[in-house]
């Protein structure tokens, strides 16, 4: 039981840290350059821990994210669940790629997520300029190698 709490504790700690990084105050000029840490985490876990991580987890994380940033509830949840689904279908292929190719995949996945989330916000009456979709996507995909380097050795903590 203690081991189980310890393992899930790692998962919870990572999620909480990502949320903190998300709400960290930034000047409004740089707010667009904030990487989507939670999306990166979801992609990472779907690719490298596919037996532990699933669509429902991704959906739950997305919902927590929506609630914390006071966005439209369900938007990030749906986006994350969808990209987790794609990653889980293709995790073996994704793992075998080089970092550069993986970054390209991450760019497309985060792009899908951004387009979906922004579409939902558009429904809610928000006006969204194009750079608000492209910039975060670009920055997030550039952060992928850093995340892989940091998290890859720690996989075993969760796998047990």
């Amino acid at each position, binding site marked *: 039981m203690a081991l189980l709490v310890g393992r899930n504790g790692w998962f919870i700690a990572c999620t909480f840290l990502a*949320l*903190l990084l*998300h*709400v*960290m*105050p*930034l*000047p*409004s000029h740089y*707010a*667009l350059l*904030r990487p989507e840490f939670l999306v990166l985490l979801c992609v990472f876990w779907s690719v490298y821990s596919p037996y532990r991580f699933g*669509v*429902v987890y991704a*959906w739950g994380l997305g919902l927590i994210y929506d*609630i*914390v*940033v*006071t*966005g*439209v*509830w*369900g*938007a990030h*949840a*749906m986006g994350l*669940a969808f990209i987790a*689904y794609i990653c889980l279908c293709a995790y073996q292929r994704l793992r075998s790629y080089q970092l550069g190719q993986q970054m390209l995949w991450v760019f497309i996945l985060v792009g899908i997520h951004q387009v979906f989330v*922004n579409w*939902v*916000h558009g*429904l*809610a*009456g*928000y*006006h*969204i*300029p194009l750079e*608000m979709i492209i910039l975060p996507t670009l920055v997030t995909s550039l952060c992928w190698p850093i995340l892989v380097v940091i998290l890859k050795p720690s996989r075993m903590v969760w796998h047990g």
Partner: protein
Amino acid sequence: MAVLFVVSAILIGLFIFTPHLQGARNQAISFIAPVYEVTNFPRHLKTWLQMRLMSRDDLIKDNEALRSELLVHQRKLQQLAFLTAENTRLRQLLNSADNINQRVLVADLIGVAPDPRSHKVFINRGEEDGLYIGQPVVDATGLIGQVVNVGRANSTVLLISDSSHAIPVQINRNGERLIAQGRGSVYELGLRHVPSTLDIREGDLLVSSGLGSIYPAGYPVATVQNITHDPGRPFVDVVAVPKAQLNRNRHVLLVFAQELPSIEGGL
């Protein structure tokens, strides 16, 4: 996956098109406030250090500046008493109620919503302090926005610069009524449906008109910065700069506009 999709679609639909989730959203503020408190810690530390590690010279300088500022304000205040009395007399002549004095409450900013799309801030006052949804929020220089979610001890404020927000205003110089809409930037508001014949100039002050019965009348909202006449378009494009310092505030004032005046006057 299909089930999740349906659940999400229903959730999004409920959120956007119906008010059913309002209660849950109010509850959620209590849960998310601690996250913002944690990220605010470095700023608290910085302010605390600045307060403790100020040099004596700086303190003296500050003190002098504040004293001279106080003098200026006191001079204005002398006139204010006279003007208020005169205003009351005139209003009595017109048989209208005096609604200038409103009770206010000071709140601290505890966080800013990180999403660049939405302009929302969190404050450390909630239901316990008598806040209500739709309550106007101002700072020392102008209107900031309105309360949209009230938790137990925290609430969310939607800024006037949010692109889903619009506020009825009037030009202070001539009383022309307009609508100022947020454009998703804290530095500008857009004016909707401005006819090209309207008497509006750069530098005009826009104050809240009190229509829509959310914001009380007479609070400064924005200054007109730029007017673009385009003959190909039906309306003039007017950009105004918000008077309130939307991205610099630490403290904001909550105005209790729904209460009857003259029960508790002033701050």
